């Protein structure tokens, strides 16, 4: 089992992005997906970093793919999607509308925000040219196992959400702007102030969700670290780690060791808690319980 680093969900400045991908080049991650995944308004602030990051990562031997936006509505967003396919790099689609731009016969990858819940959808995508699918984070292990088997039979790789605040929802409305009494069109890029998103608590102070622009994430860090053996047995070939601040290189190293196998669940979770002592962990989605919960 190997590691895929997903696209950065948050609004980081160009310098931070540059440093992040340089560090990743030296990490044991096998592949990296780069691109603006959440809000196209942010892209002009860091898109000039993308070619350099691709170069740096490929030189280091990583597989690199470019991600589409996850909710494409504007004309320029559609044009940007079309341009991704023209780069010649592998593209990971995050909105099925991207398939309209897929050149005939070109292979592609599928991100976790595309609804692949069953064999029929997976097999259709495989016939269309999908080579790799990261499953939606809310799927329980029983479904993951069925889909990993279908993926193996169809000749495509199946990966699961391995670590990070789970992407729970995306909207036309920017909740980050709304927190500052602004609308999406006049957001003044306020999401850039919160590099891991803005916390949302219940009225009694229980951390619950995280606002990231038009996207809503879980507050807890969803982790598959405690279920690696089951996932491997099911035929899952990769874990997806979602970029965050803090010791991300340490996180990649920890998951690399876990993904090699033989780390019992308590030890894996204890390792995570050492790296992120303040963070809440969750693995309920895979366990088939509420996603915010942590089993055992």
């Amino acid at each position, binding site marked *: 089992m190997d590691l895929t680093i997903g696209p950065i969900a948050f609004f980081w400045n160009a310098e931070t992005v540059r440093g992040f991908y340089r560090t990743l080049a030296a990490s044991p991650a096998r592949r990296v997906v780069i691109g603006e995944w959440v809000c196209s308004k942010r892209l002009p602030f860091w898109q000039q970093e993308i070619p350099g990051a691709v170069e740096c990562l490929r030189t280091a031997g990583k597989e690199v793919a470019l991600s589409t936006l996850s*909710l*494409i*509505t504007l004309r320029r*967003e*559609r044009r940007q999607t079309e341009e991704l396919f023209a780069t010649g790099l592998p593209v990971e689609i995050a*909105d099925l*509308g*991207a398939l*309209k731009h897929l050149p005939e016969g070109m292979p592609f990858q599928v991100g976790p925000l595309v*609804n692949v*819940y*069953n*064999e*029929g*959808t*997976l097999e*259709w995508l495989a016939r269309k040219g999908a080579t790799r699918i990261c499953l*939606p*984070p*809310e799927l329980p292990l*029983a*479904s993951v196992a*069925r*889909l990993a088997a*279908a993926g193996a039979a169809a000749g495509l790789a199946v990966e699961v959400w391995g670590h990070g605040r*789970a992407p*729970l*929802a*995306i*909207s*036309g*409305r*920017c909740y980050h702007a*709304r*927190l*500052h009494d602004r*609308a*999406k*069109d006049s957001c003044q890029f306020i999401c850039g*102030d*919160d590099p891991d998103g*803005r916390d*949302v*608590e*219940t*009225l*009694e*102070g*229980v951390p*619950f*969700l995280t*606002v990231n622009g038009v996207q*809503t994430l879980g507050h807890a860090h969803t982790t598959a670290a405690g279920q690696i053996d089951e996932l491997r047995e099911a035929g899952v070939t990769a874990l997806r780690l979602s970029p965050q601040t803090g010791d991300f290189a340490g996180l990649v190293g920890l998951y690399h060791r876990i993904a090699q196998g033989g780390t019992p669940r308590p030890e894996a979770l204890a390792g995570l808690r050492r790296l992120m002592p303040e963070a809440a962990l969750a693995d*309920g*989605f895979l366990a*088939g*319980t*509420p*996603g*915010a919960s942590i089993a055992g």
Partner: protein
Amino acid sequence: MELVCPAGTPAALRAAVDAGAHTVYCGFANETNARNFPGLNFSAQELAEGVAYAAARGARVLVAINTFPRAGDQAIWHRAVAEAKAAGAHAVILADLGLIAHAAEAHPDLRLHLSVQAAAANPDAINFYAETFGIRRVVLPRVLTVEEITAINREIDVETEVFVFGGLCVMAEGRCSLSSYATGLSPNMNGVCSPASHVVYGEVGGQNEARLGGFLIHRTPKGAPAPYPTLCKGCFTAPATATGAAQTGHLFEDPVSLDATELIPRLRQAGVTALKIEGRQRSRAYVAQVVRAFRAAVEAVETGAPIPAGLLAKLTEGQAATTGAYAKTWR
């Protein structure tokens, strides 16, 4: 314009047809539809009877099979499509790519509509479904402005259907797992959002509390109207940060309903074919009242008369309504 009305039960179907619905949509009593609530929905026999009742009065029936089939259990969903066809449904409303592919292949003469759960929010997505599977109509997500709907209609050849009244989803539908994060049950997998089975009401310090999956969603003074604890319409706090002041309130959306009655003329101008009323979980009395009001509104728009005002104010959640994403300022 075509008025597409909800029917959670055979009695509601008859009420909607009698009140003037051009079209009624409903679902089977299982997890294949996104309103999988106890005591609701149709058996195959009831659906066939409902189709006959509607047809005798010039109305049509659509069947929503708009959850995402569970891996290993796709046969349940495939059977639902076959049963809808056998019952004489005018069309099926589908969301899952694999299920659409199955329906297009196994039932090439069955009319396919794309559910709002498919989250096709741009012309490319809609044209992809139209060209690949022959879908004839798309139910547009509630994340678009009227201007965007106009632009979409210029670039597609299929019919569009939009929501005009009822519950308001503020997240892109079919792509929201807030409910499964809090409760383990989700619209996509189980056909439920913020399910009543996971709601607990309590009273603390003279205030009513509503929890969903253990998370406090609302706290209201005793005696005040208490909204249903839907996650995205809950009351939360964003603590202060270095650059942001603390905020407490309905951070995502107020507990309001969608009412786009006043926008019907503009939606017609935008090229919209059908207006959809949400509410399969509602009583037949409610359905009849809303359908009558909207039929009157649609008739008025068709003849150029003013829309009768204030018909529905009492029916909206919290007695408050919004035009949601249709107005750009909502964002």
